[in-house]
Every structure is written in structure tokens, then in C-alpha cells.
């Protein structure tokens, strides 16, 4: 090494230069794939999300009382007989197909299909353009299911006949 004049910055002699990230003042532009510590960055966001959810539950619970009908009476069948809303789509199917199809095969196929999905869709890409088939299939399923749920929940009245919810309301929560 040459005997050069020492490099002096702010009255301090620079002894060496080490590779790697500077300990402080790292001004490189951060990319989405850079990592951050979960505490605090992710955890504060999760805490805020948690508080918002609890706030929502609190407000709804203060505003609306849970329903309670008359005591169960096996001899008095209500009309319409409604399943809880998350089974309304199945109940709607039951009105159109044999119970073996609507009550056993369809739910079985949905659960089986969902479980199998990651093993059927082996396309590794995450970009929406290359996932058209998967996206369209799933979206069609979602739309049909939400549609059936809405129909079964709000548009069905006595004897499972079609009603308009703004005329008569038969939905139960």
C-alpha cells in the first residue's frame, strides 16, 4: 500500500472501507420485496385492524338485539322453513334438484374442489393476466353462489314461492 496522505473527514481519519449496508443513513429506494421487521410494522397494522373489527362488533351489538322467537314447537312448522343464511344457497338448490344432488353431491363437490384447487391449478405465475382461467372459474362460482344465497335468503316466501323482499320480508338471521 502506498504511503498516501491519510483521508480525513470532519477531523477523523478514515481507516478503512467495509462492504455491506451502512449502519445508518441507508437511503436506497425500498422495493416491495424488501423486508421489514414484523414488530412494529405489521403488528401495529394488525392491532388497528383488530380494533376496527371489535368496534364494528360493538356498534352492531349495541344497535341490534339478537333475535329470539317463540320456544321451539315440533308440532308447529313455520312457513317458510328457512335454513341459516349461509346454507340458503343449498336450500335454494334443494328446490330445483333431487336432494341427493343439492344436499350431498353439490356441497361435497364444492369442498372437494376447494381442497383440490392448489393441486389442479399448477400454474406458478401470480400475475392476473396469466391466471385467466382460474380467475374466471372462481369468479363465476362466487357470483353464482352469492346469487343463490341472496335468492334463498331474501326472495323466498311461504312454500318457497318467489317474493320481492321489499314487499314481504322472510329473511332470518
Amino acid at each position, binding site marked *: 500500500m502506498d504511503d498516501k496522505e491519510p483521508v480525513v473527514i470532519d477531523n477523523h481519519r478514515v481507516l478503512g472501507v467495509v462492504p455491506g449496508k451502512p449502519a445508518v443513513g441507508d437511503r436506497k429506494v425500498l422495493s416491495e420485496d424488501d*423486508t421489514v421487521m*414484523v414488530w412494529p410494522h405489521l403488528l401495529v397494522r394488525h392491532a388497528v385492524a383488530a380494533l376496527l*373489527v371489535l368496534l364494528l362488533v360493538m356498534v352492531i351489538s349495541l344497535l341490534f338485539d339478537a333475535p*329470539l322467537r317463540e*320456544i321451539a314447537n315440533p308440532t308447529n312448522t313455520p312457513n317458510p322453513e*328457512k335454513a341459516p343464511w349461509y346454507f340458503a344457497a343449498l336450500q335454494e338448490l334443494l328446490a330445483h334438484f333431487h336432494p341427493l344432488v343439492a344436499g350431498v353431491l353439490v356441497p361435497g363437490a364444492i369442498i372437494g374442489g376447494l381442497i383440490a384447487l392448489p393441486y389442479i391449478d399448477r400454474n406458478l405465475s401470480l400475475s392476473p393476466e396469466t391466471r385467466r382461467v382460474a380467475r374466471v372459474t372462481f369468479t363465476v362460482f362466487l357470483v353464482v353462489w352469492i346469487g343463490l344465497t341472496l335468492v334463498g335468503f331474501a326472495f323466498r316466501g311461504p312454500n318457497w314461492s318467489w317474493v320481492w323482499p321489499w314487499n314481504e320480508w322472510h329473511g332470518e338471521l
Partner: protein
Amino acid sequence: MRVVDRIKGSVAYRSIFRLPDAVTERDRAAAHWSSFLLHLYPVKVRRRELRFGYSAFLGVASMVLFGSLIISGIYLMFFYVPSPANAYGNIQSIQTDVAFGQYIRNVHRWSAHLMVIAVAAHMAKVFYRGAYKPPKEFNWVIGVVLLVLTLLMSFTGYLLPWDQLAFWAVTVGTSMASYVPLMGETTKEILLGGPSVGSATLVRFYVLHVAVLPAIMVFLIALHMWRWRKDAMLTVDAAERSIAAEPVIEEVS
């Protein structure tokens, strides 16, 4: 601040939280690992995961609602007896006599509805993000099981108030079971404990609702989170990686 430092230096504190002083990032990671609750979380995530649009925090929302259900559910258990002679009257007195009873019952019922929505929305969000792709296939499968369990929890809980709504909703729901090929009637009788919804059904649903299913769910949610943590650093586009399922190496010290 002095008091805080004194507490943190005390023998008792050190025996509970065996952490190094948080000086470097490495110390903070060590503190993270050594915490029981935090160890379900990764130490680091990619910055994209901080954005709302990434997960819409729906997984967290599902978890919070489950927590709200456990707490409100335990409170209700103090005042509720699962028999046709008592159940309905118990719910009535929860609403009128028990301190905060009506409010807690509301919390339980509305949290249950919201949880079904949150879990379903979480599934859709995970789908559209492609987060079920290798190496996360199995966490998706665990998720599907959690979805089914959430529905079963809602359904078994729905019977417990023993009002007309409960009785007939469960009658409709379980009538489908009798169409299971070959063993339809058997399946139905196992579910109901008899030919129709009655006191045996109420006890069965109650035990499933407050003990069996929640225990399975707590275990599966912990497993679900733990696998999420393991894969947290692998969110990059899988197509950019040469092999689909490389061995998972934790990128955290």
C-alpha cells in the same frame, strides 16, 4: 423511564422474559422468537404485505372474531343449560336478568355471522392473490377445513337458543343428511341422536359447539398461522423461482 428499566432488570422480569436488550435487529428477532404469542408470526415480512390491498387483513379479522366468540361464548356458558326444559328460559333470563347478558349474546350472535363472512372473504382474497400456490398448497387445505368448521360452529350454535328459528333451521339442515347414499338414515341419527331434533340433539350440538369443534379450531388456526410464518418470506412470484417447491429455508436469524 427509570422505573421501567428497574423492572426490566429485575430477576423476576428476566425469568419471565428471557430476552437480550434490544440493541440490534438481531436482538429484536431473538426477542420475537422467544415470545410464545409472537412466535406464530414471522420476524420479517416483505413490505408488500403491509399494504391493505395485500390481505385486507381478513385473516386477522377472522381470528379476532373467533377470539370474540370464545370470550362471549364462555360468558354465556355460565348461564346456559342445554336441555329443552331449560335452554329457552336460560336465553330469556340472559337477556333480562344477567349483567350485560343481552349485549354479550348480541356480541356472540353477530360475531358468528361476521366470522362466516370474514372467513369466506379471506378465502376469496387468498385466491385472487394466488397465495395457495406452491409451497402454500397445504395451508389452503387447512383453510378449507377451517371454513367447514366455522360453518359447523355456526350451525351447532344456531340450535342452542331452542326457539322456533333454531329448531326448524336445524330440522331443514339435517334433513339433507338423510340423502347421503346408503347410510343416510344412520348419518342423520348420529347427528340428531334420534329420529328427529330433540333433547339428545341439543346435548350433542352443545358438546360439539363448546368443546370438540373449538378445540380442533384452535389447533388448526395455530397450525395455519405457523405455516404462514414459515412461508412468509416466499411470497415472490413462484414462476420466477426455478423449482416450484424448493426446500423451505427460514431466512431469519
